[in-house]
C-alpha cells in the first residue's frame, strides 16, 4: 500500500494549538487521576483482606502447627517509622507553602529515607521468617503473609521510586507553587501507602 493513500486517511492535517485558553479545573488532573487510581488500589487491598478473613475463618489452628509467630514488636517499631515519614511529608508541604524550599526538600528526603528503612527492616524480617521455615508453600498462613505484606511492600517501593524521582522538582528553578502541585499526586500515593499499613498490621500481626 502506498503511504500517500494513508496520509490523509485516519487523521487529516493538524491544528495550531497555541493560544488556547488555559483551563482552571477544580481539582488538578494529576491529583484527580491519582485519586481514581487509589480507589482501585483500596479495592485491590480489600480483595486481599477478604481472602485473608475467609481462609483464616476456615482453619481451626492459626497459625498452623509448626509455623513461627510473627515478630509483633519489631514491626510495631517499623510501623512507627512509616507513620513518621508521613508526618515528614506533611511538614514538607507546610514548608513549601511558606516558601522554604530547602527545608521542604530536607523533609521530603527524610520521608524517603524513613520509607527506605521500613523496606530494609521488612526484608530482614522476611529473611528470618524464611529461616524459621515459613515459606510461600509451607502453608496458607505463610502464603497469605507474603502475599499481603509483599503487595504492600511493592507499593511502598513503587511510591518510594516516585518520591525519589519527584525530588528533582526541588532542584529545578521553579516557583514553589509548581513544585507543590507537581509533588502532590505522589504524596497522596505515599499517604495512601502509609495509611493502609496500620490496618494490614493489625489484621495480619495482631489479631
Amino acid at each position: 500500500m502506498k503511504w500517500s493513500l494513508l496520509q490523509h486517511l485516519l487523521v487529516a492535517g493538524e491544528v495550531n494549538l497555541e493560544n488556547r485558553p488555559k483551563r482552571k479545573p477544580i481539582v488538578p488532573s494529576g491529583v484527580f487521576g491519582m485519586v481514581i487510581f487509589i480507589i482501585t488500589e483500596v479495592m485491590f487491598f480489600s480483595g486481599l483482606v477478604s481472602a485473608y478473613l475467609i481462609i483464616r475463618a476456615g482453619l481451626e489452628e492459626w497459625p498452623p502447627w509448626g509455623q513461627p509467630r510473627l515478630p509483633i514488636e519489631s514491626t510495631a517499631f517499623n510501623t512507627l517509622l512509616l507513620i513518621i515519614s508521613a508526618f515528614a511529608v506533611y511538614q514538607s508541604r507546610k514548608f513549601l507553602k511558606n516558601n522554604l524550599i530547602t527545608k521542604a526538600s530536607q523533609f521530603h528526603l527524610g520521608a524517603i529515607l524513613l520509607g527506605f528503612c521500613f523496606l530494609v527492616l521488612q526484608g530482614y524480617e522476611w529473611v528470618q521468617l524464611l529461616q524459621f521455615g515459613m515459606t510461600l508453600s509451607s502453608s496458607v498462613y505463610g502464603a497469605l503473609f507474603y502475599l499481603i505484606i509483599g503487595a504492600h511492600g511493592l507499593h511502598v517501593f513503587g511510591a518510594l521510586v516516585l518520591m525519589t524521582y519527584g525530588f528533582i522538582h526541588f532542584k529545578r528553578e521553579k516557583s514553589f507553587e509548581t513544585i507543590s502541585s507537581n509533588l502532590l499526586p505522589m504524596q497522596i500515593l505515599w499517604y495512601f501507602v502509609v495509611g493502609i499499613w496500620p490496618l494490614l498490621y493489625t489484621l495480619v500481626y495482631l489479631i
Partner: protein
Amino acid sequence: MGQQAEAILHETEAHDAHHEMSFWDKYIFSVDHKIIGFQYMFTGLIMAAIGGYFAYAFRMQLAWPGEEVPFYGLVDAAKYNMLVTNHGTIMIFWVAMPVLIAAFGNWLIPLMIGCDDMVFPRLNRLSYQIFLVSALVLILSFFVTGGGFGGAWTSYPPLSAVAAYNLTNWGASLWLLAVFLEIVAFLLGGINFVTTTMNARAPGMGMMDIPIVVWMINIAVILFMASVGPLVAGAVMLFFDQRLGTSFFIPSGGGDPLLWEHLFWFFGHPEVYVVLLPTMGIVAEIITVFSRKKLFGYRTILYTAFGTGGLSFIVWAHHQFVAGIDPRMANVFVVTTILISIPIAEMLFSFIATLYGGSIEFSTPMLWALGFLVSFLIGGVTGIYLGASALDVYFHDSYFVIAHFHYTFFPITIIGMFAAITYWFPKMFGRMMDETLNKIHFWGTFIPFNGLFLPLFLVGMAGQHRRIADFTQYPDLASPDLQSIRIFATVSLVILLLFQFVFIYNFFNSMFKGKKAPLNPWKANTLEWTVSSPPPHGNFAELPTIYRGPYEYSVPGREEDYWPQHLAPNQ
C-alpha cells in the same frame, strides 16, 4: 504500579506541538486519541474475528459431533473446552471492552466534550501498548504445549489452579497473565477518560450538557475501576497457586475454592454493566438523531445509570446460588437482582418514549439501535427468571443461561459496535458507507442471530447442560428433536458469519472509495460533527463554546430541526 503514577506526573506538563511525522510516529506510536482509538478498534475487530472463528468450530462440533470441521479440523473434548473458554474470554475482554469503551471512548470523548486530546496522552499510548501485549500473550497461549486454557472464562479453581486437573500447565498461566495485563491497560485508559471528562470540557459545557454516551462511558469506567481490584487480587492468588505452590483456592491445602467465585463475581457482575452502559449511550445518541426529537428524560436516564451502577455492586452472588452460599444471603441477592432490572427497564422506556411520535428515519445506524432495544429486552427479561434463586436451581449452567447472556451480550457488543461504526463512519473516515450493503448486512446479522439463540432457550429448558462437547453421549439429550434444534442454531451461526464478509467488504471499500461525506451528514447537534472529517490533530481549529444541551431537536420556532451545541443563541 509506580510507572502509572509516574506517567500521570509527566503528563501534567504540556505536550509539544506535532510536526511532519514519519509513518511510525503518526500511526504506531501516536499519542493522538483518535489514532489510539483506531488501534483499539482494529485490534478489537481482529480479536472478534478470532472469537467468531472459535464459535464456528465448537458449534459445528455440537451440530455434527465427532466429524471433522471444515477449516478447523477435529474438535475433541479438550479442544472444545479450550475453544469455549477462549471464545468467552476474547469476546468479553478483548472485544466488548476495547471496542465499546476504549475505542469509542478514546475517539469520542475529546471530540464530544470539545478538547484537543486526552489529559494524559502518553498514558493513553501506554494503555494501548499494554493491551496489545495482552492480546499477543493470549494468542501465544493457544500454541504452547498442552494448548490453550480450557477451564471456562470464569476459571473456577481447583480446576484452574492445578495443572494436573486442567492439563494446560502453561496455557492456564498465560491466560491469567493476559487477563491481568488487559486489566492494567484499561486502568490506565480509565483514569484518562474520567479525568479528561472532568477537567477538559469546552467552556460552557456544564455537567448536564455532556452527551449521554460520554456520561455512560465514564460511569462504566468508574464501575470498572471500583470493581476490578478484588479480581486482580484473586488473579494474583490464582497465579501463585498455579506457579508457586501456594493453595489459596485448593481445599486440600487449607484454601477455599468459593473464595475465587466471591472475588471473581464481585467484578463479574459490574462488568456486565461496564459493557452495557456504553452501548446504551450509543443507542441514545442514535435514537435521538434519527427520530428528530429531544431525548426523553436526559436526567432520568442519567439517574437510572447511577442507580444501576450502585446496585451492580450488590447483586453478584446471583451467580453462586447453587455454589453453596448461605441461602439467607442468596435471598437478599434475589431481591437486589430483581431490583436492578428496574433502572435498566426505565432506561429502555426512556428510549421508547423518545421514539414515540418522532419522525423516524430508518437508516442503518437506527436499524441497529432498534435491533438492540428489541433483543436486549429479551435478554433482560430472561435475566429476571434466573434471578429468582428457586428457578435458578434448575436453570443454572444450562443453555438457558447461555441464551440469556447472549441475548444481552450480542446486542451490546456486536449490535452496539455496528451501530456505532455505521453512525460515526462518516466522521471517522470522511466518507459515507454504502447504505444498501449496510442494510443487507444488518438483516443478514439480525435474523440469524435470533435463529441462533432463540432455540437455545428451548434446549436449555429441556435440560441441556453447558460446557459439554458431545450431547449424543447422553441418552436424554441425544433425541433427534434436540439434535435438529442444535443443527438449526449452528446453521444460523454460519449464515451470520458469512454475512460479516459483506460488512468487511463494505467497510474497506467505503473507506477508500465511498462518497465524500459532508461535515454533518446526520444533522446532529453534538460537537464532533463540527470538525472536519477525518478530524485533524488537535481537533478543533477554534475551541468551541457551548450554549445548550446536546439534544435540542425540532425546537419550535427554528428553521432547522436541529440546534448544534456550539451555536450562539442568536444564530
